């Protein structure tokens, strides 16, 4: 279907300023101004993925909502994406429609998660997706607009409106955008998409229903074990603790050098963190995270933070300078939502 046969209704306005106000007035923005989607800009988005306007990109089963290529294109233009970003946006939407991600839970829950997106493969460097200094901050068009486009599709196409379908108690700034790349150029480890069965030359995006990033600090240590001991201590009581979601751990430059210098692999990191983030049932009961009377055996009965070491996703990313890394707790539990990786396809 060409744009001439488009499903989207159009409106004639005097200029971009009027158009911007028009979108605000209809509740079609995330609170920031949008780029008015015109026929040519929407068509350029469609051309970049070789999709027809009416073609289905994804289907959200429990919302009974078809996401068409044209609607993705319209929202991607509004977000400020370049056409070259569109394949990443499409792959991310395919991923959040996967039953394993389970759209209804993370998108609507009072728990208030965002769609964390990790881009791997050569496309991350081609599109200049930030994987280094200040990667969660402003300043990179790709990081800012790819995540924003996905959120605008959630809002405008899947009707995930704050206070209505999206019942987040608090939410967090990652709901504006939460898109980064792995620092594959400087990482000593296999990237996440390769761990998940893709080749290094393939492009992929991993989506993860995520709470906000938590920064950890260790400027005293020069061994992998010491750095990760601090990380584990920060992680141990985080998120909803007892529900066993997945976690992302971002290992930034200085810590990456120390940990890799000790010869530790990503698997070593996962195993260490898994072993050192468990809590005793007694502690969880004492701090009212589990109900019930504390029994003598509870002091020695340990509950892991996650189900398995593989539920800790290690990402090499962040600036070279500074003794900081971060962890990102997942929303809810692994039973209700899992991270999903999809190939980014280009025509």
């Amino acid at each position: 279907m060409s744009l001439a046969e488009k499903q989207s209704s159009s409106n004639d306005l005097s200029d971009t300023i009027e158009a911007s106000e028009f979108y605000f007035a209809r509740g079609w923005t995330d609170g920031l101004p949008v780029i008015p989607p015109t026929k040519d800009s929407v068509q350029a988005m469609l051309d970049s993925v070789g999709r027809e306007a009416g073609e289905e990109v994804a289907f959200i089963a429990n919302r009974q909502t078809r996401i068409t290529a044209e609607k993705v294109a319209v929202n991607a233009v509004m977000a400020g994406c370049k056409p070259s970003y569109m394949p990443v946006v499409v792959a991310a939407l395919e991923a959040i429609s996967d039953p394993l991600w389970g759209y209804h839970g993370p998108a609507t829950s009072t728990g208030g998660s965002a769609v964390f997106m990790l881009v791997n493969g050569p496309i991350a460097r081609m599109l200049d997706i930030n994987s280094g200094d200040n990667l969660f901050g402003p300043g990179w068009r790709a990081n800012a607009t790819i995540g924003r486009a996905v959120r605008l599709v959630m809002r405008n196409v899947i009707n995930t409106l704050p206070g209505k379908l999206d019942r987040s108690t608090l939410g967090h700034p990652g709901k504006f955008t939460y898109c980064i790349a792995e620092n594959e150029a400087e990482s000593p480890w296999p990237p996440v998409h390769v761990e998940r069965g893709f080749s290094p030359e393939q492009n992929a995006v991993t989506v993860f229903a995520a709470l906000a990033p938590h920064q950890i600090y260790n400027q005293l240590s020069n061994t992998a074990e010491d750095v990760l001991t601090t990380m584990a201590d920060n992680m141990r009581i985080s998120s909803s603790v007892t529900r066993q979601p997945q976690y992302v751990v971002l290992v930034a430059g200085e810590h990456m050098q120390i940990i890799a210098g000790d010869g530790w692999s990503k698997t070593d990191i996962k195993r260490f963190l898994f072993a050192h983030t468990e809590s005793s049932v007694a502690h969880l009961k004492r701090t009212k995270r589990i109900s019930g009377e504390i029994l003598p055996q509870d002091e020695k009965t340990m509950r892991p933070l996650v189900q398995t070491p593989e539920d800790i996703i290690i990402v090499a990313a962040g600036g070279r300078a500074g003794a900081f890394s971060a962890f990102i707790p997942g929303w809810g539990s692994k039973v209700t939502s899992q991270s999903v990786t999809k190939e980014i396809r280009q025509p």
Partner: protein
Amino acid sequence: MSKGITVFDPTTTPKEQPLRYASRPATLQGRKVGLVDNTKINSDKLLLKIGKILEEQHGVQGMLLRRKRNSGVPAHDEILNELGAECDVMIAGVGD
């Protein structure tokens, strides 16, 4: 007056599908109630309490509690088929 820019609507609407309510029995007297636990904390306790009230005050005879796989998905076929075969009415839709 000529206009300078034509812009597109970014929204869509869900696919419409016909929904049909199950017929309601005139009375709960002698009926068996199915309870769908959505896995939220205490949802089973709340449902069993409701079931007990229905037994004591409305003549319900028997309850069957079954648990969904998680709160974010519809009840799966296995429990739907069992509840459908065993029960006359069902209670679901427990929030936080």
